[in-house]
């Protein structure tokens, strides 16, 4: 019973309130709400800025996910050893996870600053970026700049999950493969990956949901700019909420929620994810 009460208070009621809010219009003059049906949803679905931010969100999610999975797996395999000193390395992996995302955003904002940033300095030295175009103000580079912060902070999360999965794998298939003359890569492809599929799927699902809702890094590093180049759905909704356009913001937030649910459901079915 207490669980049901908690669920209703903190889950069901806010959701229903958001749905109610998304069916209203707030007068800028009287500040009263008026029922307008699905008008906010229509506006949201025909607003080019919604689709732009959806595209930014999707790009952000897929790119960050790719790097976090690949790097996470590579680092996890390197750390999956009993050699001396590696225990300490495994512990250090948790450090980025305890830093608040807003602080990480601030850190990367400074590192990527065109004048004072250490990252900008070395990228300029290497000829990778144009000295006159700051990373976070470039139409082609701003989103990459924000992604770097996310990848730095959350790759260790993937490492820890994959490492736990790797440590739980049975030794016998690897011994058999070694007798059959399998290379390390073959063993990884034919044994490790199939055995880790569910672990990877759960990790990907959790991170996808998080990535799709990204707000902190964008807020701190770019305010969604230049223009709307780094404006994610959550940030756009948040901005509208700040500026008192509650009904439209609620509609956008629900679109994020529905999108996430659809994507997650497809993913769970496809990869037979069990919790």
């Amino acid at each position, binding site marked *: 019973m207490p669980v049901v009460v908690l669920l209703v208070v903190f889950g069901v009621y806010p959701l229903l309130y958001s749905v109610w809010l998304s069916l209203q219009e707030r007068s800028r003059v009287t500040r009263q709400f008026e029922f307008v049906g699905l008008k906010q949803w229509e506006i949201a679905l025909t607003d080019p800025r919604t689709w732009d931010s959806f595209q930014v969100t999707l790009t952000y999610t897929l790119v960050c996910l790719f790097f976090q999975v690949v790097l996470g797996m590579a680092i996890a395999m390197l750390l999956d050893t009993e050699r001396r000193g590696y225990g300490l390395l495994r512990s250090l992996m948790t450090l980025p996870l305890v830093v608040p995302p807003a602080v990480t955003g601030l850190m990367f904002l400074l590192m990527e*600053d065109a004048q004072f940033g250490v990252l900008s300095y070395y990228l300029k030295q290497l000829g990778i970026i144009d000295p006159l175009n*700051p990373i*976070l103000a470039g139409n082609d580079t701003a989103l990459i700049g924000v992604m770097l912060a996310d990848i730095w902070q959350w790759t260790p999360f993937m490492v820890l999950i994959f490492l736990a999965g790797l440590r739980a794998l049975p030794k016998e298939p690897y011994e058999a493969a070694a007798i059959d003359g399998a290379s390390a890569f073959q063993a990884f492809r034919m044994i490790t990956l199939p055995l880790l599929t569910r672990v990877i799927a759960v990790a990907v699902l959790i991170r996808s949901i998080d990535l799709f809702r990204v707000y902190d890094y964008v807020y701190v590093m770019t*305010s969604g700019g*230049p*223009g709307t180049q780094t404006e994610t759905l959550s940030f756009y909704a948040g*901005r509208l909420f700040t500026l008192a356009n509650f009904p439209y913001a609620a509609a956008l937030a629900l679109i994020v929620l529905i999108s996430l649910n659809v994507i997650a459901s497809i993913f769970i079915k496809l990869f037979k994810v069990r919790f």
Partner: protein
Amino acid sequence: MSFREHDRKTFIADTCGDYASRRISKREFIRKLGIAGVGLSGFGAAMLGGGRPFRGLDFGNPAFAQAGPDEAMMQWLSEVGKPFAGTTIRYTSEATPPTIVANQLAKEEFTKATGINVEIEIVPLEQVLQKATLDIQGQIGTYDLYYLDQSWMATFSPDMEDPREYYDSHPDIAMPDFDWADFSQPLLDGISMYDGKLVSIPFDIPIFILMYRRDLYEKHGLKVPTDLNEYMANVKAIQEAESKNGIYGTTGQLRSGHYSLECDWTAWLWGNGGSIYDKAGMFSGGDEQGIKGLEYLMEISKNCPPGALTWTWDGEGQSVAQGLAGQVITWGEYFPSFDGANSKVVGLMEAAPPPKAISLRKPEDCGFNEIPNVGHQGGSGLGLSKYSQNQEAAFLFMQWATSKDVVGRGSVLGGGASPVRLSAFTDPRTLAAAKVGPGTTRHFPAVEKTINTMMGSEPDFPAWAELSNNTIPVELGKYLTGQFKTPQECMDAIKPVADEMAAPFRKA
């Protein structure tokens, strides 16, 4: 680290240790930190997050530490505050100098006298807006007072008591000698009035003034510019001569999507004869003068450090203090930080009123009480919530925080950033601080002249906060980063939204 620096840090560490272990009083602690050149900025910068603008709060005048509060006022507070002892009042604010000062002094002065506790939540400006918006929408009364940016006065007007009327109708808690006439009329009109109602009491007055490097002007034979054409010529001259040395013609707060970019744009728009709205209440940023203003902004951006496109007020102020810019027209509030401990331009900066506009549109030809001029004001006021459960206690605090004594001292403590009263300009403590050093008030004459003769104010209507924090800076950001081919395209993108938002507030 040099021996001198080592000694200074050791001295500070020992002083902090002595204070923490109750070996010295707070007054002695402040005095010693003043001698060491450490001020409120240390606390503010380290603990309060990003505020506007880059702060330089220093106890520049150690003698100030000996100057206590006004005894008569404290006596009165202790008498009228008795019925409210134990009450807690709350407000949320940006980390501007007067708030930091109020936060520092409230406990040891106001609370000590009245028994009223004060809780100040210090967050970035956009979060102040968010919290205030939610609070008034629900009429919750979470906050007893509101820190209101000038651009929000119309938005929050229905939710605020008129402080002047409240003062008159509550003589038992009306501070004697509060002296309403001590607030300059242009400041009251620009910051606190909406539709004939006083919405707040002026609390902070960052305003655009000219700040330039005297050494570079002398080196290159430049004169203080008298209009914006001359200013641009100086910008280009320094850019051309000094960019190889890492010094740019000017700097900016040009981050896309941020209100700071809108602030810069308005100064150049107004300075080129344009306005945001015409007298019919239609967006006029895309007319001939408006386009000139936007081209001027683009030209300015080309002579800034590249990082300016990612900076808000904090980065802009930092860039000057780090010696990256030859001159800038921006918030005078920065100036004390240029003479501060971590500045590379100590004693090199000079302040002057901004250069005259190339042409200027009359206020009567603009809409929504917009006042075009180069001296863009970004002031704020303290508003008394209609939904507060502790109105009287909150009003006592409001009067204390905006009293002659606190404003006068705050102008020195706050690094010369909040002279909202006329008396602050003639206060002996303020005049004594008008020399090179932390917490300088050398720029006060320029600030005063700008307030009285060159102040520009944004339009007043309830949807303005939404427009100036979203559509305008987002589209301007696109223009500055080449997403629009022409300035006209940028203004054309803003116009339909700006007109639609203003529509309900146009007078027939």
